[in-house]
């Protein structure tokens, strides 16, 4: 059924349709609307056979999820940013124990300086946690990916992170097609755990493993995650059969087949990029797009397949590997290893900085002329940065950076950018 609603609301409805049995969460912007919605559904009785637990921290949230999942309950939680870091230890534990927990990450920057706006630093900091990571481009896809995530998690007995851009998607009102309970039930069978805590068949879960077996355990975790690369396209196809929509999958191209320049990105920014590409195509530029939906496991072959014909690749990512450059770009480079293709890293939209069509037009045109630095910071306020660098050069006690910059940026900060 078509609906005009907030992204968070759409996700809450999708999760509810998946018949979760335990939901636990700790509030953090911009995740709040999702769990608020679910909490209300549980309290009102609209969502039955479900325990909603208000925990005292994200660490506890993931820990409760571990306990309930290990006891065979379909379990969901959501977080963002600092919250994801605070639960990091448990995040690794959940995947290590092979528990099919589904978690929404409403992507947000990580401080200091504290910043509640969108980028991908939070989710990407957990890229090696052993969780599967899916990135949604639209609210419709966010909704769809949650339904697929439970299927995927429970088939593989691995936890899945569904990432959606904070505010940009979570707080955006737009049209979504909300499936019926019948459709979801047809697609998502009841949870049958691989291992479960039950007096009927006692086991000890979470043994201490020494050097004699740890390598094997980690290898198996890797091998298991790699299985997702075969399963996901199948689940996406099945999804299409049931819901009549293309959703999920590993990655998607847009006007890429004959493109000399291909822009690689994840999440909601793909929409803006596509609009730019349409305009450039109209002006005769051979540009295309590759959107990565599945970041972990990284679809290395599909990415290579999609990009190998291009002359250059521009990876536009909302994350920064401080001291290196790109995170996504590094992964893409690995996919293109030994190919004579230039890969440009563009760090954009950190901490909610808008990514505008105007900036992208300029960027892509520069790229076409191979006039880009290996690592570019989109719309960086050079003047401000140089001023601070000069200040630091001049005096050791140059004061807190963030405050200095705000002072330099001045009133502009109060205006809409």
């Amino acid at each position, binding site marked *: 059924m078509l609906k005009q609603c907030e992204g968070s609301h759409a996700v809450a409805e999708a999760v509810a349709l998946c018949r979760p049995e335990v939901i636990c969460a700790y509030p953090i912007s911009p995740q709040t609307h999702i769990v608020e919605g679910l909490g209300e559904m549980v309290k009102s009785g609209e969502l039955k056979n479900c325990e909603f637990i208000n925990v005292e921290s994200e660490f506890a949230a993931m820990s409760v999820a571990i306990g309930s999942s290990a006891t065979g309950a379909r379990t969901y939680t959501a977080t963002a940013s600092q919250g994801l870091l605070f639960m990091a230890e448990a995040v690794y534990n959940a995947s290590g124990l092979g528990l099919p927990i589904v978690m929404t990450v409403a992507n947000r920057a990580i401080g200091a300086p504290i910043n509640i706006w969108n980028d991908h630093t939070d989710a990407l900091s957990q890229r090696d946690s052993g969780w599967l990571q899916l990135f949604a481009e639209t609210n419709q896809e966010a909704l769809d990916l949650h339904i697929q995530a439970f299927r995927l998690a429970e088939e593989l007995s691995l936890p899945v992170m569904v990432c959606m851009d904070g505010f940009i998607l979570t*707080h955006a009102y*737009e049209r979504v097609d909300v499936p019926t309970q019948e459709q979801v039930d047809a697609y998502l069978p009841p949870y049958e755990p691989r291992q479960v805590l039950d007096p009927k068949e006692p086991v000890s879960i979470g043994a201490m493993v020494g050097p004699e077996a740890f390598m094997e355990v980690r290898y198996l975790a890797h091998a298991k995650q790699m299985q997702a690369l075969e399963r996901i396209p199948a689940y996406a196809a099945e999804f299409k059969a049931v819901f009549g929509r293309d959703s999920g999958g590993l990655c998607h191209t847009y006007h890429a087949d004959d493109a000399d320049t291909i822009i690689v990105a994840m999440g909601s920014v793909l929409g803006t990029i596509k609009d730019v590409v349409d305009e450039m195509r109209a002006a005769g530029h051979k540009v295309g797009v590759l959107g990565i939906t599945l970041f972990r496991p990284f679809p290395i072959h599909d990415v290579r397949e999609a990009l190998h014909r291009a002359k250059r690749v521009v990876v536009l990512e909302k994350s920064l590997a401080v001291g290196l450059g790109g995170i996504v770009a590094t992964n893409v480079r690995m996919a293109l290893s030994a190919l004579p293709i230039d890969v440009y890293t563009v760090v954009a939209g950190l901490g909610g900085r808008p990514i505008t069509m105007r900036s992208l037009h300029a960027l892509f045109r520069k790229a076409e002329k191979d006039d880009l630095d290996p690592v570019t910071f989109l719309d960086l306020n050079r003047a401000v940065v140089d001023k601070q660098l000069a200040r630091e050069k001049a005096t050791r006690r140059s004061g807190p950076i963030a405050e200095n910059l705000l002072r330099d940026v001045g009133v502009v900060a109060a205006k809409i950018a």
Partner: protein
Amino acid sequence: MFQVRIHGRGGQGVVTAAEMLSIAAFEEGRHAQAFPSFGSERTGAPVVAFCRIADKEIRLREPIMEPDALIIQDPTLLHQVDVFAGLKRDGYVLINTSKSFEELGLGDFLKDWHADRLCTVAATELARKHIGRPMPNVPLLGGFAAVSQILKLESVHKAINDKFAGKVAEGNVAAATEAYAIVRREMEEAVHA
């Protein structure tokens, strides 16, 4: 694609207004995208919300920098924030005030603008009158339907009933309707002036 930017202060229902605008458009079978300026809104702080309306899927995620229309819920912002930034030539402007554009000191800035695209309505008063609370956002939507003519008043009514219920809904419908009427009158006067 028609792009609206709404200015107001935290607590004036700015974000809700944008969302209702998108619902109204949706009710007319169009695509719409409403989103706030992602601030950690505090009561009284300047707030911006956006709404895009189009006939095909909206993929664009950038903030609206060149709006086709402006709704200004709080005239005190005029001298605080660059509310007109990027406004398209001959864009629509609806301000919540009982004063005239001249009185607001916007005369020069908006001269040789299509006069029937510049309207004011004392939405706060209407809100007090019909809802009992100074919430200008909904009545302004009625006025906006009138001035922009991209939405039917009925669609605004639908959006109101989607968001509110009972007395609040009724009051808002009444307020929006009266605002609609007031603005239409202003426009006619402007045309015949």
